[in-house]
């Protein structure tokens, strides 16, 4: 049914359609509206046989989810930013125990300095946590991906983070097609865990594993990740057939045929970029977009095929690695190893700095003019703000426009 609603309400409705047994909530912007709505559904009886727990911290939220999933219930929670970091210890515990929890990360920058706006530094900080990480480009994608996430998690035996951009998606009102309960009941049968805590068949879960078997435990976890690549595609195909949706998948290509340049983007920026790419096409500039949906597991093979024989790729990244470089770019380089494809990072949109059509336009023209000469570029950095500090403090000034990593490094040598 089509409705013009807030993204968070859409996600809450999607979660309710999946009939979770336990939902726990701790408030942190910008995920609050999702759990508020789920709590309301439980209280009105719209979502039956579900326990909604208001807990005292994100650490307890993930821990309640761990207990609930170990107890054999379909389990959901949501968080963002600092909350995700406060959960971190439990994040690893949940994946190590193989618990199919589904959690929304309403992506938001990590402090300090404290910042409530959207970037991807929170979800990407948990890159190596053993969770699947699925990114959403629109609210419709978020609605559908949440529903698919339960099925994927339960098939694979690993938890899933559904990463949707904070505020940009969570608080945006858009037309959403929410599937019917009948459709979802057909798609997602009641959860029957392979193993859970029951007095009928007692098991011990979470034993201490020493050097004699720890590597093998990790190997088997990685094997689940490999399996997940296939499961994501299968579940996506099934869901699309059932609902007619275009959501999900490992990655999606837009205008990729014979493109001179491809942009790899995760999240809501894909929508902005698509519009701009359409405009550029009228100017005769042919740019493709690869919307990266599954960051973990990373679809190396699908990425290689999506890039094809395109010679230039820019990864638009909304987070980076301090003391290192980009986070997506090295993965794409691995996918393209042995080719002469030129792959670069353009960092932008940190802490909620808006990425406009003009940003995309400038990025494309910068790329096609051969100006991305370094692996890592601060694309939307404001040198006026920088200079207001560095000029007085250290006598250093930066020129206007995008700054390459070498300009940052050189400025330290002169200081």
């Amino acid at each position, binding site marked *: 049914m089509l409705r013009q609603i807030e993204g968070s309400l859409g996600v809450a409705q999607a979660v309710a359609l999946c009939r979770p047994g336990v939902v726990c909530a701790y408030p942190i912007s910008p995920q609050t509206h999702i759990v508020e709505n789920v709590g309301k559904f439980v209280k009105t009886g719209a979502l039956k046989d579900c326990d909604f727990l208001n807990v005292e911290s994100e650490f307890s939220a993930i821990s309640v989810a761990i207990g609930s999933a170990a107890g054999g219930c379909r389990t959901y929670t949501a968080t963002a930013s600092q909350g995700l970091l406060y959960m971190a210890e439990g994040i690893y515990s949940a994946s190590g125990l193989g618990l199919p929890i589904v959690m929304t990360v309403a992506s938001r920058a990590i402090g300090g300095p404290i910042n409530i706006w959207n970037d991807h530094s929170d979800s990407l900080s948990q890159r190596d946590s053993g969770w699947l990480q699925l990114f959403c480009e629109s609210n419709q994608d978020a609605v559908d991906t949440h529903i698919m996430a339960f099925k994927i998690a339960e098939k694979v035996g690993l938890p899933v983070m559904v990463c949707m951009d904070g505020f940009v998606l969570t608080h945006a009102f858009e037309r959403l097609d929410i599937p019917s309960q009948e459709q979802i009941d057909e798609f997602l049968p009641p959860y029957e865990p392979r193993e859970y805590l029951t*007095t009928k068949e007692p098991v011990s879960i979470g034993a201490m594993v020493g050097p004699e078997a720890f590597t093998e435990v990790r190997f088997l976890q990685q094997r689940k990740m490999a399996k997940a690549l296939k499961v994501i595609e299968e579940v996506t195909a099934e869901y699309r057939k059932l609902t007619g949706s275009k959501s999900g998948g490992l990655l999606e290509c837009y205008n990729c045929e014979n493109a001179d340049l491809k942009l790899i983007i995760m999240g809501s920026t894909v929508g902005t970029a698509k519009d701009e790419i359409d405009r550029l096409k009228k100017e005769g500039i042919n740019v493709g977009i690869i919307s990266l949906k599954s960051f973990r597991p990373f679809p190396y093979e699908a990425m290689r095929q999506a890039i094809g024989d395109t010679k230039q790729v820019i990864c638009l990244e909304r987070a980076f690695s301090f003391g290192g470089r980009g986070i997506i770019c090295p993965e794409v380089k691995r996918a393209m190893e042995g080719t002469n494809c030129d792959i670069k990072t353009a960092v932008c949109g940190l802490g909620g700095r808006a990425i406009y059509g003009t940003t995309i336009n400038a990025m494309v023209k910068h790329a096609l003019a051969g100006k991305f000469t370094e692996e890592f570029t601060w694309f939307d950095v404001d040198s006026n703000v920088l200079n207001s500090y560095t000029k007085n403090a250290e006598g250093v000034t930066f020129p206007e426009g995008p700054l390459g990593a070498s300009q940052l490094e050189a400025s330290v040598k002169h200081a």
Partner: protein
Amino acid sequence: MLDKINFYQTGSNTVGNRLLNPAMRSIQASVDRPNSLISGHRACQGCGEALGARYAIDAAMRATNGQIMVVNATGCLEVFSTPYPESAWRLPWVHSLFGNTAAVGSGLAAAAKIRAMKNGDTNVPRIIAQGGDGGTTDIGFGPLSGMFERNDDVLYICYDNEAYMNTGVQRSSATPPAARTATTQLVGEHPGADWGRGKSVPLIAMAHGIPYVATATVADLRDLEAKVTRAMSFHGARYIQVLVPCPLGWGLKSNSTVTVARAAMESGFFPVFEAEYGKITSVRKIRQKQPVLNFLKMQRRYAHLTGKKADPNVVARLQALCDTNIKNFGLLGDDEPNGVPTAIQAYERSNRV
């Protein structure tokens, strides 16, 4: 006719099981005891925690007809009972982290309830969350308080051995004053743990107004069994703190675990009581009062208080601490305490002990 029998065997002050009728005998004395924590685990000789856990969990199993699921904090109990691929637990058991045990218990209780509801099953398994004092009074304290205030249907058992034993005997907020630990060493002007630190989690639990709070020791295992049984008669959040001496951490002979626990109880060092809905309902009276020195002299963590260089003022302060407990909790005489006692740390901080 029971009141005519002398329950306490001469000298030992333990109840003779064979003198009781079968219904009153210890669960551990039964041939069909649940054996929830079975032999073969890797606890040290004389481990108070293994002893306490075996009695507590078996009592809960008996009280619920075997419907118990356990969440275990990281710590000695977890490590010695479940080295992969072995497990000493003969019931559903899960370990996640050090500090999240109460919250995992909340989640498991919710799942047990919902699963039973969805399956139309009237039999809902009950949940026990358990951990040591570090996992309870320190790192797990936030989730514990959250579980209490939500009144989640979980019994939390803290096996209190007054320090972080699994990591090598470091001080916790349950470590008593003047005790030696690896982080409160016997050096400097004030050897051992500082005075005026720490907290009383049983009293804090009572302040949450939860249905049931109790303390117990492994010196009175029948009392521990009775308290666990009582706890299982309530629904909602419940808390039991059991004093479980640690031969390694306290510097005890491994055959004196129970003796030293008894000295802690009989000296007033560790008050044993129970409370319902925030009010004390019973106090385990001291039977044969002992000076605190009897408790101290069995332990190397207090060796500096009993040797030639001992500071008598510190022993006197510890005795005053015990005397204050005796007065506050009414551990001697027939009276029950009037109102909620003040945490002993308050007296330490105000220099009244």
